[in-house]
């Protein structure tokens, strides 16, 4: 199974997932996941019947600095897309 590691954050209006030059954004996570599936399909052209996993690590530097001492991270999402 191919694994892609990306970071993501919320800019106040949209969720944005990013890895290098690949950037996908949507107003809710359901839409983000759908767009991500399409973008990764274009980039990696996964074979029929294969599975592609995406680790989405929230960019914790976008949380106010004073809060970070209370908890080590915000969220980590793992998506598994079947093609």
């Amino acid at each position: 199974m191919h694994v892609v590691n990306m970071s993501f954050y919320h800019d106040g209006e949209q969720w944005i997932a990013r890895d290098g030059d690949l950037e996908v954004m949507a107003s809710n996570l359901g839409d983000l996941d759908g767009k991500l599936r399409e973008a990764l399909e274009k980039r990696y052209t996964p074979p029929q019947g294969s599975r592609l996993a995406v680790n989405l690590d929230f960019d914790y530097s976008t949380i106010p600095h004073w809060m970070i001492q209370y908890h080590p991270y915000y969220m980590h999402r793992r998506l598994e897309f079947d093609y």
Partner: protein
Amino acid sequence: MAEEKKWYTGMFSTEDWWSFWIGLFFVAVGIIAAATGVDISGWVIGFEKWVDIGNALQPDHSNMMSGVSSLIVSYIIFTIATCVGAYFMGMDMKKYFWAWTLIFWLSAIIFLFSRHAYIQATSIERADFGISWSLSIGGAHYIVALFVGLLIGNLAPKSFREFMYHGARPEWFIKIAIVFLGCKLGMKVVDSTGYALELLLVGACATVAAYLLFWPLVYTLCRKGFKLTREWAATLASGISICGVSASIATGGAIRARPIVPVMISSLIVVFAVVELVILPPVLTYTPWFNEPMAAASSLGLTVKTDGADAAAGAITDQLMRTRAQQELGVQWEEGWITSASVMTKIWIDMFIGVWALILAMLWLRYVEKRPDEKVEKMEVWWRFPKFVLGYFVAWIAVGVLGLTVIGPDAMDWGIHPFESTGRHLFFILTFTSIGLVTNFRKLAEENMGRLALAYGLGLLLIIIPLGWIIAYIFHNGMMPPTVG
């Protein structure tokens, strides 16, 4: 490319882990001193009650050096230790160093002058100091440090406040102090009383009871009473019911909330925790709760919602209650046990946050959001586990086992006391000053805060505090702090 999250991710880059490393480093120094008899731990500065300022500063091992030298050595060593942590955490080193330095010396000056015998001596101690009256305010240094911090944090120019945030790390400082506190329970194991274990078990029971009751009641209040959306209600319910800011972040993450949700709720939690920190210790001390000191302290762990404010409230209650017991009952309770009871329930609450976040994430993704592509990783439990708690238990077990076997109780007490007691008090006062510095009451005036603040305040007053008191009483009633000697 972003890196995959591993089990050891953050081991050298988070404050939680650095409270583990720094706390255990000094515990190890204390144990080595105990084992070898070489005095490498006695330099830690202690602030004594005084009428002659020449007696105000004393190193923990009083013959080791002068008080002033001990203060300077303590500053240098603790500065190096925290700067190493700050460096690995990627902080702005120059700003951290100067802000820490200001906080350290400000706290030291407050500690020094607030320990004057006219302020803190009990009625029994007055004759020793040759004075006829005193205010007998145990813990005055903590209260003064908090208010000085609040004054700076709310009234100083914005640029100065923001500069001070670089060194004001109440959660980091209190977690180091809590690792030191683990040694105290280790020493109790050495005394073979079984008291520490009893405290551990009843703390766990009280915590489970609180989890099961607090969260659903507050969630229902927010949904039905205040018509908050699920996103806001779940995050607020966790913040007020479980462990404050860390719970609101963990829950926000678990239910995939927008970051603004835990950010706004966390601002509320910090402000309310300081209000509780000021009000609850005298309320508990000067009401019938005084007859149940350990239950009263345990209730703080259930009701004060940040680690720093809870331990700080426990420390003030410890001082106030011991002063009252000495004056009115003629009994001298051992220092630190009331604080330990308040911290113990909080530690259990902290430990379960990962399990709670995992359960919530599984339920949310399966039944609320219904996103089949997304998997919940069991590693959430570890990633969200408070690592300083490991330090607390390692310190407890190491001091207990080694004190019972190869080192012996007297040698262990000599070696570890500088950190278990004196160093812990130093980090407590650093916490108080820092809590004041980072608590900004202006947050309450921000847009859309009114309804949230009302929901939070009512949840606290109607559900958390009354139930917390009942649960603490049920599990801790009859437990009394050990007496000196």
